[in-house]
């Protein structure tokens, strides 16, 4: 499989009040084309810093990041990197630039100097994918949080990236908004084969991910399939992370002596396992 993102001995530190803070501590990580990778960690674990580093918004203090083989330190490649690996941020209000939905979606391709006819096609296609076509003439402030965030996704899609990084893109949404955005992202990964790097602190959002990476204090604490990760309830709680309710209940029941496998993720799985004893 082709590597979409290759992170080699990455370190990032900055100083605040003359104090040196290490946000990323010697991290190495590969993300493959077409993968859905969930990155999870509490606030200050370095996950947002990582997103900005991949997009070349900030530069590593040591080590390298390659996006589709291009080093983010290479100034000539920076625009191509940002086009190939787009990023959707947390606050929907602060990433919509234009006063009309379709003009905002057009913003990226306009910056890339795409021909007007082609921009038109991309805008229409992108809005279709996020199911916001009927809102193309609306003003952003008339939309709900979930809708605004889908517009932000369309804005990235219109640049035709191969990978999208979601930096806590659902953190400010209500449950229904979160669900509609998450569904949209999963569909992008499955149908358009877009590589997804999904940064969050909601465990239940990434139970379907191909791989989960848990960050703690700027380092990778563990990585593996959702099942492998959610089996390690105690370790997760140690770094202030919470497992989904059902996983937690299964873990508690197991502690009481029931022979339940690790890493139960859904209601159905737990029912199935409990019924064996009955």
């Amino acid at each position, binding site marked *: 499989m082709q590597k979409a993102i290759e992170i080699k001995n990455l370190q990032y530190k900055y100083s605040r009040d003359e104090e040196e803070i290490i946000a990323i501590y010697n991290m190495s990580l590969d993300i493959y084309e077409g993968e859905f990778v969930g990155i999870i960690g509490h606030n200050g674990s370095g996950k947002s810093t990582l997103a900005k580093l991949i997009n070349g*918004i900030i530069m590593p203090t040591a080590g390298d990041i390659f996006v589709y083989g291009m080093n983010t330190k290479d100034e000539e490649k920076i625009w191509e990197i940002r086009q190939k690996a787009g990023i959707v*941020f947390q606050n929907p209000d*602060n*990433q919509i*630039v234009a006063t009309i939905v379709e003009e905002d979606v057009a913003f990226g391709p306009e*910056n*890339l*100097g795409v021909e007007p006819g082609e921009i038109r096609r991309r805008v229409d296609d992108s809005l279709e994918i996020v199911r916001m076509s009927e809102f193309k003439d609306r003003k952003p402030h008339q939309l709900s949080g979930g809708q605004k965030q889908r517009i932000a996704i369309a804005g990235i899609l219109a640049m035709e990236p191969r990978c999208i990084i979601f930096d806590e893109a659902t953190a400010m949404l209500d449950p229904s908004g979160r669900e509609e955005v998450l569904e949209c992202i999963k569909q992008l990964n499955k149908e358009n084969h877009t590589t997804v790097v999904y940064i969050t602190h909601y465990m239940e959002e990434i139970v379907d991910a191909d791989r989960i990476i848990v960050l703690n204090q700027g380092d990778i604490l563990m990585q593996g399939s959702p099942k492998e990760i959610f089996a390690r309830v105690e370790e997760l709680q140690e770094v202030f992370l919470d497992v989904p309710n059902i996983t937690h209940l299964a873990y508690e029941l197991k502690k009481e002596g029931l022979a339940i496998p690790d890493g139960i993720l859904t209601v159905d799985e737990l029912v199935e396992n409990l019924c064996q004893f009955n």
Partner: protein
Amino acid sequence: MLKDITIGQYYPVQSKIHDLDPRTKIVYTFVYIIILFFANNYVGYALGAGFLALLIAMSNIPLKFVFRSVKAILIIILITVILNVFVTPGNVLFRIGSLKVTDAGLINAAFMALRLTMLIVGTSIMTLTTSPISLTDGMEYCMKVIPGIRSYAHELSMMMTIALRFIPTLMEEADKIMKAQKARGADFETGSIFKKARNIVPILVPLFIGSFKRADELAMAMEARCYRGGNNRTRLYELSYSKNDRIAYIVTVVMVAMMIASRFLPLMRIPIQ
């Protein structure tokens, strides 16, 4: 709700004037303002008023809205009128105390008021029939033709677009912060002006801090979407002229010609006084 307040005074109805390219309207308005100062006789004023009336009629905007803008500058018009009435020399009609009112003064004042009104109404028609967004677009294109400010055209219009985009968001935020401080017992209504001004600090500080944070995040998001200024940038909608725009430009030229004629051709000169 607060966030639904329209910015500017755009009046969204269907009309031939609404459909014109914003550049056409900007150029026309600009020319109109200049030729108003050419008018120095009855015919000239009649021309100015006539073209304006035609425009208003074609714009489908209720007169009430058209003349609302005049209200805002009523004071300025009044001051101009009073100054003109009292300082213009001529045949004294009557006196108020030591002030003389002359016939030329009255005529001058009336025409000055008319000119100012036409000026304001003329520009209002442009803002009433053009949405702030296309106005911004039009201005960017127009500025690009003018040497000196050409290189700032894109930046200025981007600034305007972002301002338009964030005004509703910031108004909502200001409202929310005000309520939050009220919930903490803040009082914004009573007290002297000085006290009121000081009381607004708990609103302004969070609003500024919030705006800086927004600006910072927006800049990052724009950069992530490959924004690098106006060079090599394309547009979803390239402005393009239609047949009606060509007609409008011809009308503009005709208007200028007629105005010049009214000033210089003896036939058309019906001088004031």
